[in-house]
């Protein structure tokens, strides 16, 4: 790799554990929200991160942005390690990496006109004179397709799509190198989802930022990403090109995910996963997916599979069965009932 090919962002073995105290009794439980995640994002590349609720996607996003410190592992941005949260170096980095939130309404201060909020990063990082800031705000608003008069509106006076555009404009106003979108469309209406996805694709192509796109909607991820990583309970269980994963998912969880995509006129049966969504505070031993996995084998219960290229086609997947290391079992469902 030459210098320019060096990934914009690389994360190595990130892990993050939260302690939560339950009630006045004060029993402390540890929640391992992220458990050894490694990922890289190049300039101009979009990485899609999918997985069900609570699997650690947002935590990964926060770790990658340096909003939180990983307990283990390291994040390197532009080749340099991430400075500690709150330090001057960290604050300065904020203008180079930005976050787009899931729910635009709650990510915006409902008491300030959006124009002022879009401008805020410039004020915080003292970028330019007030006049220049105004010009930049106007420019970025146009970029995301907001009209100048929208600047004076309060968030609630904008439509969902316009709100998310405002959030994106706020993220883009400092011309960041990395944009992390944490479920930017799941709170939106179908027709607005399309608007926002179009916008993100277009902006990313035009501005060439690196982008981490977090979602649980595989359809949307396919629409946007160059590469997709599937997460389950704090780990990446599969990684590959969107169409590969969507059409030939290797990991049983990915398979369930893909089969669950609702589709007009669909005929294929979906794989309905049994049991509860996993509880990160009570992580099963071995492969974390094994209690819900339709093809669990004995080994899955004891040995955690590693994310590595599959011998057959080089797909990176963390599954003993997909790797062909063991034969698929059929005991999973019986055990649960």
């Amino acid at each position, binding site marked *: 790799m030459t210098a320019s090919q060096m990934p914009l962002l690389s994360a190595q073995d990130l892990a993050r554990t939260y302690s939560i105290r339950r009630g006045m009794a004060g029993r402390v439980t540890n929640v391992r929200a992220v458990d050894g995640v490694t990922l890289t994002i190049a300039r101009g590349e979009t990485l899609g991160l999918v997985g069900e609720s609570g699997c650690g996607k947002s935590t990964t996003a926060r770790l990658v942005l340096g909003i939180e410190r990983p307990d283990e592992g390291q994040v390197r941005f532009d080749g340099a390690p991430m400075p500690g949260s709150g330090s001057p170096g960290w604050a300065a980095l904020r203008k180079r990496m930005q976050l787009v939130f899931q729910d635009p309404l709650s990510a915006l201060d409902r008491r300030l006109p959006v124009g002022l909020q879009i401008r805020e990063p410039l004020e915080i990082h003292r970028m330019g004179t007030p006049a220049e800031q105004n010009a930049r705000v106007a420019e970025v608003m146009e970029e995301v397709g907001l009209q100048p008069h929208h600047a004076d509106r309060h968030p609630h006076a904008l439509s969902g799509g316009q709100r998310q555009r405002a959030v994106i404009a706020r993220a883009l106003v400092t011309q960041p190198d990395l944009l992390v979108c944490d479920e930017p469309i799941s709170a939106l209406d179908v027709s607005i989802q399309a608007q926002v996805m179009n916008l993100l694709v277009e902006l990313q192509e035009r501005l060439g930022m690196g982008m981490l796109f977090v979602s649980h*909607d595989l*359809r949307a991820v396919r629409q946007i990403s160059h590469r997709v990583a599937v997460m389950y309970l704090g780990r990446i269980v599969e990684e590959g090109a969107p169409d590969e994963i969507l059409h030939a998912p290797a990991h049983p969880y990915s398979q369930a995910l893909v089969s669950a995509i609702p589709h007009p006129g669909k005929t294929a049966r979906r794989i*309905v996963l049994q049991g509860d969504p996993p509880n990160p505070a009570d992580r099963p031993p071995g492969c974390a997916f094994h209690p819900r996995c339709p093809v669990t084998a004995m080994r899955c219960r004891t040995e955690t599979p590693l994310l590595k290229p599959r011998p057959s086609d080089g797909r990176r997947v963390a599954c003993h069965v997909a790797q062909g290391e063991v034969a698929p079992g059929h005991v999973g469902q019986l055990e649960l009932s």
Partner: protein
Amino acid sequence: MAFVQIRDMSVAFGSAPALRGISLSVERGEALGLVGESGCGKSITWLAALGLLPRSAKVGGSVLLDGVELIGASPSVLEPVRGGRIAMIFQDPASSLNPVHRIGHQIAEALALHRGLTGAPARAEVIRLLDQVGIPDAKTRANAYPHELSGGQNQRVMIAMALAGEPELLVADEPTTALDVTIQAQILDLLGTIRRDTGMGLVLISHDLGVVSETCSRIAVMYAGRIVEQAESAAIFANPSHPYTRGLLGAMPPISGPRQKLVSIPGSVPEASRMPQGCAFAPRCSEAIADCTRVDPAAVTVEANHLAACIRATPAKTGTRTPERVLA
């Protein structure tokens, strides 16, 4: 006569109309999908039917349940209907469950009201219901408070509560938006199973055509307080006759094939208080013609059992009479 017959129902909050004349019917055992953008009035329709809107809402029209009028009915008529004959699953489970009561208690309340179950039998039934909706370890979970459960679990508690009264019709208001795909699949599956087993009717409210299409045999598309298209599921996808329906379908990212720019519907739903002249969709419609801003189009029969309220929709050549389910 249909099991539930809504005729020309309108709802207004102050001077802002939220529903502008809706006619809809649901047969026994039928699964009807109700789709449309956020705020188009999907929830209101059924809240109004059951008399659950705040007093400030002005409700007009008629809702007949087996021929009994519900609009303006006395509490003694409405109370047995609510939860007993027509049950509702609300949109936002976390805030729709009382935070200070155990979920088992909340379900048991419905059992006591509609099935006269109390004490141990009620408790057994609560556990059976929770089990049925797929809450593991139902015995202990029955004693949990809503905040101790995840969003998905609360959603399933809502479903169990709705099922407790053994309703003849279940109105499920976006039962899966709060959930991720795998759990959504579980829930849809469950609803299908119950329907098959008990012959319960289902109204599935959603804004996701994909979700509705998998569950329902008939779909009604709503826009700005009106039903703009109504047909069998397959027909909607095969032959969407209203530009809004087409917009909804186009906005869905394809699952295969080349990736291209999605066709989004520009603009947003008009505010209730500032409804445009003519067709409410006209300002956003790429196919609008001059007449669209003048005439509010009536529904026309595009083909058998397929109605669309668009000025450009061509009526079926076969001169079928307007079916019973008239659109306003």
